[in-house]
C-alpha cells in the first residue's frame, strides 16, 4: 500500500510539474521542433538534441527535460508524413510504416494512414507509460538485487545485442562494438586518475567526448545526404488534400489488441539497452504480419502495417528511459545524448531516479505522453502546412542545421577539440553509412566499454571468481544472451547447412 502511495504521489507530482509554467510552454516548443525535424527525411532526434542542448544549460531539470523529451518524443509522429505521401521515411523508424503507408496513399487513403499513425503513436506511448507504472515496484526491488556482476552482464547483453541486430552482418556489428570498446579505453582510470592512451593531450583525459562524436557519426551523414539530394526531397509536389481522418481512429480501435501487442513489444525493445526505434518498429511490424489472416496483403496498403510499427516505435521511447534512468545504461542512441546532458541539469541516473527523484522520472514519462497527444492534435490541425514543409529546399535547411549542430556539439566542453571530433566523426560516419558498417554498435561499445570495465573490475575485487558461479541472476542474463544472440546465429548456420546439403543432393 505504501509503495502504491509513493508511486501515485510521484506520478501526480510529475504530472503537475509538466503542466506547470514554464515546463509546459517549453515542452510545446520542443514538440514544434520535433515535428519539424521528423518531417524532413534524414534529420531526427539527434539533430534536435544538437539544436536544443544550448537552451537547456541553466534551466531547471524538469523544464530542460520537457524541452528535450518533448522534441524527442514526437519526431516519429511526423516522420510518417513523408513516409506515407512520398514513400521516403522521415526517420529510420518509419521505414516499416512506408511499406504500407505509401501504397495506401496511392490508393487515395493518405488521410486514413496518417491519422491511424498519429493515434497509434498516442496509444503506444500510453501503453508504455502504463507498463512502466505497473513494473515500477518490481524495478525498485530489482535495482537493489543487481550487483556489479549483474550490471556487467546487462552491459554485455546490450552490447552484443546492438552488435548483432544493428546491421546486416553480425561480424561487422561485433567488430564495430569492439572498436567502440577500444575507443572507450582512452580516458583516465577512475581509481587513480592517470591518463590512459591520452598522453599529454589533456582534451582526451576524460575520454573522447560523446556528444560531438555521436552527432558527427550519425547526424552529419544524414545532412550530407540531404544536401546531395538536391533542391527538394521529391520532384513531384504532393497533393496536399488528405481525407479519411476518422477512419484512422476507428482502425486503431478495431485493432486494439494489435496496438497493445505492438506497444508491449516496442516498450520491451526500449527496456533492453542498445536497441533502438528500428528494432521496435520491425518487431511490431513482424507481429502484425504474423497475426494477420492475410499476410500477403502487407506491403500493399494494409492499415495494420501502419498501426503496428507506429505504436511500437512510440512505445520504445518511454521504454528506453528505463535502463537509462535506472542503471545509467542508454536505452538507445538518443539516450546516450540525454545521459551526457544529465549532469548539466544536475541529474544523476541510478537508484535516486526511482526513489527521491521519482517525480522527475514521472515528469519525463508524462512529457512523452502529453507531447504525443499535442503533436497528434497539431498534426491534424496543420496537416496542409506540414505537408508543404516536406518540400523545403535542402539548400536552406542544410547550412542552418549544420551550424546548429556545431553549436550543440561544442556546448559541453567549449573546446576546439570538439569541432575536430565532430567533423572527423562525421567523415567516418559517412563512410561507415555508405559502406554498410553499422554505427550503433560503435557508440554502444564506447559508452558501455567504460561501464563494463568498471563493473568487471568491481565484480572481481568484491567477489573474486565467485561472481561467475554463485550469483543466479548472472546465469539468467547469460541464458538470455545465449537465447537472443547465440541461438539465432546457430540456427541460421544450421539452416544454411541444410540448404547447402539439400542443393548438393
Amino acid at each position, binding site marked *: 500500500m505504501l509503495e502504491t502511495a509513493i508511486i501515485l504521489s510521484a506520478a501526480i507530482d510529475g504530472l503537475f510539474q509538466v503542466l506547470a509554467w514554464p515546463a509546459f510552454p517549453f515542452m510545446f516548443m520542443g514538440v514544434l521542433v520535433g515535428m519539424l525535424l521528423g518531417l524532413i527525411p534524414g534529420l531526427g532526434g539527434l539533430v534536435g538534441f544538437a539544436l536544443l542542448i544550448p537552451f537547456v544549460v*541553466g534551466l531547471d531539470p524538469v523544464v530542460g527535460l520537457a524541452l528535450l523529451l518533448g522534441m524527442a518524443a514526437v519526431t516519429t509522429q511526423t516522420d510518417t508524413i513523408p513516409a506515407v505521401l512520398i514513400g521516403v521515411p522521415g526517420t529510420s523508424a518509419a521505414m516499416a510504416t512506408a511499406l504500407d503507408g505509401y501504397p495506401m496513399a496511392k490508393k487515395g487513403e493518405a488521410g486514413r494512414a496518417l491519422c491511424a499513425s498519429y493515434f497509434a503513436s498516442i496509444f503506444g506511448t500510453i501503453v508504455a507509460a502504463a507498463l512502466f507504472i505497473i513494473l515500477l515496484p518490481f524495478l525498485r526491488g530489482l*535495482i*537493489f*538485487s*543487481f*550487483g*556489479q556482476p549483474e550490471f556487467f552482464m546487462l552491459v554485455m547483453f546490450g552490447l552484443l545485442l546492438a552488435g548483432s541486430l544493428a546491421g546486416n552482418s553480425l561480424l561487422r556489428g561485433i567488430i564495430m562494438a569492439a572498436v567502440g570498446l577500444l575507443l572507450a579505453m582512452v*580516458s*583516465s*582510470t*577512475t*581509481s*587513480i*586518475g*592517470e*591518463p590512459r592512451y591520452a598522453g599529454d593531450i*589533456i582534451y582526451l*583525459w*576524460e575520454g573522447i567526448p560523446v556528444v560531438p562524436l555521436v552527432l558527427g557519426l550519425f547526424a552529419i551523414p544524414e545532412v550530407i545526404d540531404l544536401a546531395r539530394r538536391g533542391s527538394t526531397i521529391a520532384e513531384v509536389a504532393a497533393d496536399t488534400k488528405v481525407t479519411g481522418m476518422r477512419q484512422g481512429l476507428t482502425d486503431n480501435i478495431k485493432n486494439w489488441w494489435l496496438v497493445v501487442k505492438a506497444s508491449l513489444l516496442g516498450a520491451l525493445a526500449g527496456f533492453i539497452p542498445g536497441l533502438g526505434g528500428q528494432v521496435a518498429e520491425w518487431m511490431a511490424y513482424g507481429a502484425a504480419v504474423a497475426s494477420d489472416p492475410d499476410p500477403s496483403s502487407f506491403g500493399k496498403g494494409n492499415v495494420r502495417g501502419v498501426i503496428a510499427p507506429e505504436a511500437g516505435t512510440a512505445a520504445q521511447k518511454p521504454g528506453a528511459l528505463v535502463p537509462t534512468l535506472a542503471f545509467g545504461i542508454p536505452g538507445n542512441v538518443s539516450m546516450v545524448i540525454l545521459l551526457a546532458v544529465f*549532469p548539466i541539469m*544536475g*541529474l*544523476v*541516473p*541510478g*537508484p*535516486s531516479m526511482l*526513489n*527521491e527523484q521519482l517525480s522527475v522520472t514521472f515528469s519525463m514519462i508524462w512529457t512523452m505522453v502529453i507531447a504525443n497527444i499535442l503533436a497528434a492534435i497539431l498534426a491534424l490541425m496543420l496537416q496542409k502546412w506540414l505537408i508543404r514543409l516536406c518540400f523545403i529546399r535542402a539548400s536552406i535547411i542544410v547550412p542552418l542545421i549544420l551550424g546548429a549542430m556545431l553549436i550543440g556539439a561544442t556546448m559541453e*566542453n*567549449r573546446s576546439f577539440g570538439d569541432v575536430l571530433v565532430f567533423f572527423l566523426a562525421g567523415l567516418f560516419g559517412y563512410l561507415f553509412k555508405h559502406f554498410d558498417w553499422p554505427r550503433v554498435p560503435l557508440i554502444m561499445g564506447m559508452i558501455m566499454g567504460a561501464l563494463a570495465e*568498471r563493473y568487471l*573490475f*568491481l565484480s572481481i*575485487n*568484491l567477489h573474486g571468481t565467485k561472481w561467475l558461479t554463485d550469483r543466479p541472476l548472472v546465469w539468467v542474463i547469460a541464458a538470455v544472451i545465449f537465447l537472443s544472440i547465440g541461438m539465432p546465429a546457430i540456427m541460421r548456420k544450421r539452416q544454411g547447412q541444410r540448404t547447402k546439403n539439400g542443393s548438393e543432393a
Partner: protein
Amino acid sequence: MIVENEGEKPEMSISTRSKNILKKSLVALSMIAPFAIAGPALAEPDFAGKDITFWTSHKGADSVLSLQTFSNYISKYLKGNPKITVVSKFGGGGLVNANYFAKINKPDGLNVTMFNFVVTMAWAMGKDGVNYELDQYRMVGAEPQVFMHMAGTSAKVGDSMLDIAKAGPHTYGTRTRNANVMAAEMLFKGAGNPLKVVTGFGKTEDVIQALASGEVQLSYVYGPAWVRNEANYRGMGLKPLAQMGVIGKNGEVARYAPLANIPTVAELYLKTNPNGKKTMEYLAMKTATGLSNIGKGYFIGKDTPDDIVDAWRAAMQKAAADPDFIKEHTKLLGTPLELVPGPEAESILKDGLEVLKDTYFQKGNDGYKMVFGGK
C-alpha cells in the same frame, strides 16, 4: 591698512591673503580627494565581457548545482558581471581536475577551480599522478566537506561503527582511497578486525546502490547529503554510523552541528585507545579533518595579482551573504552554503600542509600507506 588706488585692486592684508590661499587649497583638495579615496576602486579588475570557468572535480547533481548557483551570485559582485560557467572534470578522486587546471591556469582570474581535500593531501604527501603545484595557487575561499560513514543492509548490526568493527570483518566501498577510508581502517584495526577496502566505484549513487543491495557493508557519504536524503536512505536500509567531524575552537575534533547526534570517528577511536591522541594515526585523522573543513577549496591560478585575488575573495563573501542567494541555495539544496573566507582558508591549509610535511606522511612511509594504501 587697505589703501584704495584708482584702477587698481586694493592690497590685501597678510591674514586675508592666507585665508584666500587656504580657501583655494581646500577647494583644490576637495576636488582631488574623491580621486584619492577612490584610487583603489579605480584599480578593481574589470571582468566585463569576459567568460570565466569554474572547474570542479565533482559530477554529482547537488555539488554542481550548488556551485553554479553560487557562481551566478559571485558574478553579481565581480565588476563587469562576467558569465561564470561551472565545468566538471571528474575522475581520480579529483586528480584529473587538478592536473587539468595545472595545464590551463593563467594569472588572469578567468579560471578558478575547486580542489577537494584528497587533492590537497595527495600533493602534500607526494602521491603518484600529481602534476600540479598546490603551493603556487591562491585560495579565494572554501567550503567545509564533512563526511559521514554509513552501513548498508548487510553490515553486521550494532549501535555504532565501533560495534560493527568489533562484530567482524567488513567490506568498505569507495571511489578512491582517502582519509575517510583511513579513519575507518584505523577503527577496525583498533577493534581487531580487518576492513577490506574496494575502490573503483563510479559515483556516490553507485556506492549507495551497492550498500542497499548488500554488496558492500560500509561506505561514506557527504554529511549534508545524508541530512537532506535521510528518509530515502533509511528507506533503502542504510544507517548512519560516525562522522569525520570538524575542528572545534579548542583545536580538537568536534561534531558537525547538523549531525550532532552522530559520534565522530575520533571519539570512537579514543574509546578503544584512550591514549590515542598521542599517536601519529590520530594526528593524521585530525589533520585530515582539518583539511576537510576546507574540503572544497577554491583556488585561483599561479601568479595571479593581488587585486584579482582580493576581488574574487570579496565577491565570494558578498555572494555567500546575499539574502537572495541564501534563500535560493536553501530552497535548492536544503541548507545554506557555508563559506570559509579566503585568508582563513589559506591559513587552515598552511597548518595542514605543515603537518603533512613530516616524513611519516610521505610516500613509502606508514602515514602515506594509511591514507593511500600500499604495502
